[in-house]
């Protein structure tokens, strides 16, 4: 007040803010900037530490990267002949994720199209809430369902000797991927401008024709990104596959054979592997591989979404 009174006449008094407000604002700005940056720092730090734990084994003469990637023989604790071959685990991960995506994609794209284009506003709200709930179920609960419910059903239906197998893991993972693909896919469809729909309807197209010939082509990049994020989830999922796939290291001979995945293998063995031993480092190397796989998938999804933006 007094300061305002002191300003020379003829000039508008500038609002004077207390020092703490100015400093506080600056500090807050820095803090927000830091939290934004921290995501990058964390990702780099995680990759650095995982790689640092793994790196020495790469240069060890007892370890061969070719054997690591091409051999099925995984004997990390063998007394006579230690072998680190993860081909069986890679194939396991590929089988389970592939099957999960094959099962999940038709369902989730169907659901996304239904929610975005066909259903009324009230049902849409209900469905979206239910799908979000489905996405929030912890993976250990899915694993438990895989272990106790779906595996029994599979034994009853197929006569398979063991219920915890590729099919079981694929079904469970598909159930986990559906909510992700559905909600991202629905967003992609919603992102198509309404003018497209109006133009189609004006030409006498039915809803289905609009979806088939206008919306799907327009949203295809977004939908592909949704599917890729689903794949990323499937590849990285650990607990549910650990519990529902039977944990057997080999190349599966069919859908009803048990397998082990890269993630489940790390989860099961890291606890026992003596710190900084070769086994420990190889497990970290498996982690690096997983990191690279999911990184590639997410990057692909991101580039595709970027593609969408540029087209508009």
């Amino acid at each position: 007040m007094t300061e305002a009174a002191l300003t020379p006449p003829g000039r508008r008094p500038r609002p004077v803010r207390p020092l703490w407000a100015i400093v506080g604002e600056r500090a807050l700005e820095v803090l927000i900037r830091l939290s934004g940056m921290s995501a990058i720092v964390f990702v780099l730090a995680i990759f650095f530490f995982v790689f640092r734990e793994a790196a020495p084994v790469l240069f060890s003469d007892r370890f061969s990267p070719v054997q690591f990637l091409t051999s099925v023989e995984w004997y990390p604790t063998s007394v006579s002949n230690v072998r680190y071959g993860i081909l069986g685990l890679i194939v396991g991960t590929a089988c389970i994720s592939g099957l999960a995506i094959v099962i999940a994609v038709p369902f989730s794209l169907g659901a996304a199209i239904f929610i975005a284009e066909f259903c009324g506003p009230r049902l849409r709200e209900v469905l979206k809430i239910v799908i979000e709930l489905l996405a929030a179920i912890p993976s250990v609960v899915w694993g438990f369902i895989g272990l106790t419910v779906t595996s029994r059903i599979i034994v009853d239906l197929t006569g398979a000797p063991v219920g915890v197998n590729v099919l079981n893991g694929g079904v469970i993972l598909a159930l986990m991927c559906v909510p992700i693909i559905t909600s991202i896919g629905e967003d992609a469809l919603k992102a198509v401008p309404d003018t497209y729909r109006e133009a189609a309807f004006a030409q006498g197209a039915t809803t289905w024709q609009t979806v088939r010939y206008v919306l799907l082509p327009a949203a295809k990049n977004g939908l592909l990104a949704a599917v890729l994020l689903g794949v990323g989830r499937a590849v990285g999922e650990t607990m549910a596959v650990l519990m529902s796939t039977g944990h057997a290291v080999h190349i599966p001979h069919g859908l009803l054979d048990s397998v082990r995945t890269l993630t489940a293998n790390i989860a099961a063995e890291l606890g026992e592997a003596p710190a900084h031993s070769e086994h420990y480092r190889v497990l970290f190397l498996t982690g690096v591989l997983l990191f690279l796989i999911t990184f590639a998938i997410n990057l692909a999804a991101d580039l595709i979404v970027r593609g969408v933006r540029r087209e508009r």
Partner: protein
Amino acid sequence: MRTPWLTKSVAYGLAVGFSLTIAGCGGSKQSGPAQSAIQVKGSDTMVNLAQAWAEEYKKVAPQVDIEVSGGGSGVGIAALEKGTIDIANASRNMKPEEVEQAKRNTGKEPKEFVVAFDALAVYVHKDNPINEISLEQLAQIFVEGGTVTKWSQLGVTIPGASDDEIVRVSRQSSSGTYEFFREHVLAKKDFKLGSRDMNGSKEVVDLVSNTKTAIGYSGMGYATPAVKMVLLSTKPGEPAIAPTVANTLNKTYPLARSLFVYTLGEPEGQVKGYVDWIRSPAGQQIVEKTGYVPVPVTSAAQ
């Protein structure tokens, strides 16, 4: 009709609330300095036993909290090496390099106590007609390069099974049971790839009880009516021996083994009290109750 239901639910609600309050009080009391906790970790074979001990010991010494977790003998020993736990349960001996590692990390030498005996039983589904098997046949089923992959090779037809293939149920590699089996059945050779590697003793028995063509190994304490323990002979033609208490004690059963607890250095204070109690007749009674073989008093005193 409504009232009894209502009173009942109110009563339950009160009971739950009341017990929570008591538990809460107990919790706050326990956080006092007089309360001490003993961390126990390791063998899955012994996890039931260790929990039974912990519960019973609570009655003997209420001021001591005992926290038990599993994970496998290897996990327990690894934690002991780092000095993060007080007691490691193990269904195998500590290896010399593990003892070295513990000494290097903590400066104390691990001390071993035999706390029970166990027969590593070979389990099959209860409908499987096989009654006995030799160690050699067992090795051929499980070992890398082994020739036995079908039940018909053992002259066995399982009624009601659609498949002849033997489903091998094994353990994860951190398990002491896994290492014991590898050493005593497979002569330290490796397991055949493709066995279902379960994360616990109970999971092995569960899978075998659900799978007609399965064969697996686990501690004798995990037997259920849905599975059958197969008699074991050292060589074909020799008498097959059942995994019973008597045969385990006199070591005629080929896969009899000791169960251990390890402490860092000579146990002191509460840990000493607990280990001593485990080996006392009261502790050994629990061993018998959980399906294992108690250590005779003379050898426990050593």
